């Protein structure tokens, strides 16, 4: 009887000391609060960058050693865009092949014109372009280049796929077309 009574009283007195757990929880909370950095709203433009191809004259016969091209692809499937820059690193002239598309800063109007031109060219199933090669002035700043890259990656191939194959080459100084 007395034994049973003692047992009852013992189970009723069990008390969890929450203070220690609270201390630890606050330490963990402090750690996470101090190490917390909100992630920047950063995104990516994903693309396949094969090695560049040699730019050939359209009047010449294609170089058989380059045809088919493996990773590099062939020049006849490549649309060449040339971007020159001024001394401040802003875009100066943008050309598709030898045809000027915009002069001066790359504003919305210039980018819209470029986009419309590309849409026309890639929408034509008879023109076999599947990649773009950007020949860029070495002085051009990255944010100016990205405006053009952004327009290029939005283009759709006749198959419906988004264009992802873009390559870059540097225009040697004084060699702008």
């Amino acid at each position: 009887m007395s034994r049973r009574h003692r047992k009852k009283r013992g189970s009723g007195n069990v008390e969890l000391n929450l203070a220690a757990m609270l201390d630890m929880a606050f330490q963990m909370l402090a750690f996470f609060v101090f190490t917390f950095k909100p992630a920047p709203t950063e995104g990516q433009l994903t693309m396949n960058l094969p090695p560049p191809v040699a730019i050939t004259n359209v009047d010449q016969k294609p170089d058989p050693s380059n045809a088919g091209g493996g990773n590099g692809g062939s020049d006849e499937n490549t649309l060449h865009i040339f971007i020159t820059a001024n001394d401040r690193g802003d875009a100066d002239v943008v050309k598709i092949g030898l045809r000027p598309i915009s002069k001066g800063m790359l504003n919305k109007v210039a980018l819209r014109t470029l986009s419309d031109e590309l849409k026309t060219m890639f929408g034509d199933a008879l023109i076999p372009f599947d990649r773009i090669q950007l020949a860029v002035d070495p002085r051009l700043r990255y944010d100016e280049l990205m405006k053009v890259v952004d327009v290029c990656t939005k283009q759709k191939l006749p198959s419906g796929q988004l264009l992802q194959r873009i390559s870059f080459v540097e225009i040697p100084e004084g060699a702008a077309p």
Partner: protein
Amino acid sequence: MSGSSNSEGVDTNLTPMLDLVFQLITFFMLVTNFKGAAMDLSLKLPVLGSARPLEWSGKNEPLMINLNSTGKIRSEGRDHEIDPFIQREARFVKLQLRAAGTDYKEGDDLPVPVILRADKDVKFATLNQVIRTCQEVGYRQFSLSAMNRAE
């Protein structure tokens, strides 16, 4: 005397506070991103509305390259020269691929994307050097980073 016995009897109920603290801990654990440590947050990225978060489900971690406006790659708090850094990282990835028993052969494309975080003032010549070096060692998939909106 009776007053002192009263004060001894005061017992704060800590359970709701503990509940709340654990909820806060859970929140911070879920939103904390330790991978952000690999990013150099001092870089000013270009702003492009069409940039989307990278969806990568491969086994190998993408190679993150932070290219600052001085033309150096910033990694682990130090500036590195472009070519040696990329070549070292590529060697490491190739070793990892061989150790994992994949059928990777020397000269194959590396099945690892490169995330290129370049400052918006970086000149194309520097950027092109990075891309060329990456291509030479076998990288083909690139993601160019940009902010979704100006901050």
